């Protein structure tokens, strides 16, 4: 009876589920991550549309001979060669390229919005090195004009992360790049939460004279101390001990439980190797290393451990841990068999991630690799979707997935090419020719809007 009572009491507060142990002697309660601030995202209205006469890069990494694709009720319902419309509106692509919508796994749009006034600095909770209790979504301003420009660049999904000042920076949130008055209206339905963690220079610089960590040693000790607390917290819940709800530990317990994906800012190869051992000590999985400027030095280690790396094409040198950047980082990681992808971390770069991939791809092949254009596309949508736990919903053009689609006015790897149309859930969100494009409230009343 005690177990049942505990279970009901916790249900109200924590929404935990109960499971009875087999032997009947010791009953445990499975930790279940409470949810709040649910998504209210609704796709824009769409009409069934058949895109024909297209050159399709489908994001699977393999070349396809399909040249037509049907979008019905927001989903991809058929893809193949010379499909017939069966009543759908026909859009003749006229030989243009059609690709999945681009996914940026590392953005601060909304939590470091433009204009970059002091009042808009909502991306780093720089009050303690341990702030796993905060969530990026609570700092996202949906009127950031950067969302609109990213859409024009073909970005249909993006992941907003807290900054890298803290060892545990807080939860990240995956958003549809949909015009909305609220962040809830942008939240990707049922996408897993993530936890931003940070290696290296930033935490020790920020907290070095504020109680620490003041060194890389302190960084690792700080992670370990808190994983120990989280494991204890999780165990208390599982044992039915009814601990007071602790938001900080709840997020970490969610990681240990496999519900929350680790997105970790880490530049240096040797540090990433340390973090891999840390994750083994506490039994969790690092999903993605972000920035990972030295990932090319440990591509084999990333592949063995099933860890993705999200990288820039050519940013380096702005701080010591980014000094060893090379132009071939992404293709070298890919060639080692690991999951590689582009990321922006920037409100301008997010507008042309296709070019960033094009640079990296070209430089990899110049260095002697043989990576196809279809493989290279996986760095733009497929692998980011995988690393965000949403690959079954988007990231490739396959039947059953959300119809997140970009039609380009040229070769998408060309610097001169631009999206002509961007579809999200089958709805036309951007159209170059007609001028259809969302506009932030902030842009209203300016010379530009006239």
């Amino acid at each position: 009876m005690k177990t049942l009572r505990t279970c009901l009491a916790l249900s109200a507060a924590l929404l935990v589920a109960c499971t009875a142990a087999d032997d009947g002697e010791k009953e445990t309660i499975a930790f279940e991550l409470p949810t709040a601030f649910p998504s209210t995202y609704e796709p824009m209205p769409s009409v069934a549309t058949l895109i024909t006469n297209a050159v399709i890069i489908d994001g699977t990494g393999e070349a396809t001979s399909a040249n037509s694709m049907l979008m019905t009720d927001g989903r991809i319902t058929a893809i193949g060669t010379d499909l017939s419309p069966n009543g759908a509106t026909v859009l003749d692509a006229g030989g243009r390229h059609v690709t999945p919508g681009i996914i940026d796994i590392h953005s601060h749009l909304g939590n470091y919005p433009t204009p970059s006034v002091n009042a808009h600095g909502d991306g780093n909770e720089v009050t303690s090195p341990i702030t796993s209790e905060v969530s990026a979504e609570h700092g996202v301003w949906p009127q950031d004009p950067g969302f609109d420009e990213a859409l024009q660049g073909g970005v249909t999904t993006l992941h907003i992360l807290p900054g890298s000042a803290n060892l545990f920076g807080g939860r990240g949130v995956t958003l549809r790049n949909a015009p909305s008055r609220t962040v809830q209206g942008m939240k990707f339905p049922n996408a897993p939460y993530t936890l931003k963690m940070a290696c290296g220079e930033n935490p020790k610089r920020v907290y070095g004279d504020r109680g620490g960590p003041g060194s890389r040693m302190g960084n690792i000790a700080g992670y370990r101390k808190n994983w120990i607390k989280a494991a204890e917290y999780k165990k208390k819940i599982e044992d039915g001990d009814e601990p007071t709800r602790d938001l900080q530990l709840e997020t970490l317990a969610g990681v240990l439980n496999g519900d929350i994906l680790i997105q970790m800012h880490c530049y240096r190869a040797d540090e990433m190797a340390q973090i891999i051992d840390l994750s083994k000590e506490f039994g969790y999985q690092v999903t993605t290393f972000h920035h990972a400027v030295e990932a090319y030095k440990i591509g084999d280690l990333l592949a063995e451990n099933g860890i993705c790396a999200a990288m820039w094409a050519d940013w380096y040198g702005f701080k010591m841990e980014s000094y060893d950047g090379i132009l071939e980082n992404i293709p070298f990681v890919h060639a080692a068999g690991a999951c590689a992808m582009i990321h922006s971390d920037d409100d301008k770069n997010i507008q042309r991630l296709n070019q960033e991939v094009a640079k990296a791809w070209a430089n990899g092949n110049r260095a002697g690799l043989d990576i196809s254009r279809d493989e290279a596309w996986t760095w733009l949508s497929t692998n980011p979707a995988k690393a965000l736990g949403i690959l079954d919903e988007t990231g490739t053009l396959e039947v059953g997935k959300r119809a997140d689609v970009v039609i380009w006015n040229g070769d998408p790897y060309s610097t001169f090419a631009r999206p002509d149309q961007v579809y999200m859930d089958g709805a036309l969100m951007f159209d170059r020719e007609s001028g259809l494009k969302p506009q932030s409230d902030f842009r209203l009343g300016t010379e530009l809007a006239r």
Partner: protein
Amino acid sequence: MKHFLLASAVSILTASSAFAQDMFLDDVALLAADGTNSVTDIQIRDGIITAMAQDLVAVDGSTVMAGVFVSPPLVTAVSTLGIVDIGAERDTNDTTANTDLASVSLRAADSFNPHEVHIANARRRGVLYGAIVPNPTGDTIFGGTGLVAVLDGSDASILDDTGLVHIALGEAGARRAGGSRAAAMAQLRGALDDVRRTFQTQGEGDVLRRRDARALRAVVAGRVPLMISASRASDLLAIIALKADYASLDIIVVGAEEAHLVADELASAGIKVIVDPHENLPDSFDSVNASLDNVMVIDEAGVDYAIVGLSSFRTIKAGGLAQHAGNAVGNGLPFEAAFQAITGTPARWFGIDLGDIEVGQPASLVVWDGNPLDAMSAPIAIYRNGEALSLESRMTALRDRYNPATDDDRPYKYR
């Protein structure tokens, strides 16, 4: 005629001699510093262009490259190359100096290091010349005196140690000057008046000390460009008014995100402008009207402009110069105009001799494996005054050590 927006298929055949000094470029898409283009073959012997015509036959022993693009080297009109190793490491960063002893007379040339690793990293992406610009800090709008350099890594890199003087107006200048644009303009006008003053002691200027007033003299006379960081249209109009008072000033505005609102006025005042075609967000209230159309509007208005990549990472992004011009083309700027804005125009402003791609001249050119304004392209050879320059850098050394395509199986540190 080749279509210049298409990347070409490049083939490179190395001649029998491993030390081939000679190069034959077959079916070259040749770009001039004014952006115009033509198709030709080019023979280079001992660093000299010996023949340029269609349907030439290669001299025996030449390295043959087909389907390449050839252009003058690129020029970045703003950069911090050579004056900072790592931005976040203060001791390696000479881009700013907070001192009461000097402002205008702080010379970036005294800081410049031709062996800094970023220089080779920029060169291998086609950027061979640059204006190196120090930035203001503390309570002055003056960043100091910039230099003009060739990025060949030699100890003779400095072409002009007094290439420009940089100041900040707009929000950045206001912050330095005490909190308002009025304070920044007062500081600037006071400094310009100090140039006319006869100093008895070094500290008696309204704004400048004696040395700084002397350093500013060549700017007031128009012999040295005054580079002004400013963005908002109202600030650009204030600069135009300044030019009316000091007609000799050779003004180059950097940033100029709202230039499209006052394009005709800038053109008729003869004020030069440096823009980043990627800037389309209201980064601050200085650039509420930032737009991708900026560069197209000032081009049509006849403004004299250069293109760069501007951001807090100016040093490292110097290598991406061509991509910024390429994006202007993608947004509608004529190819010729975009190319000129990263070659001929900034070269003219700063007195840089790019050389001539003509028969009888020593080769001063970049050979590209595709259209230089497409980010997928890269240089495969760079010549200056007949000398082939290295395309190696610390980046390529790291690349070669960790290349998964290598068959070198020694431990990494022994490679």
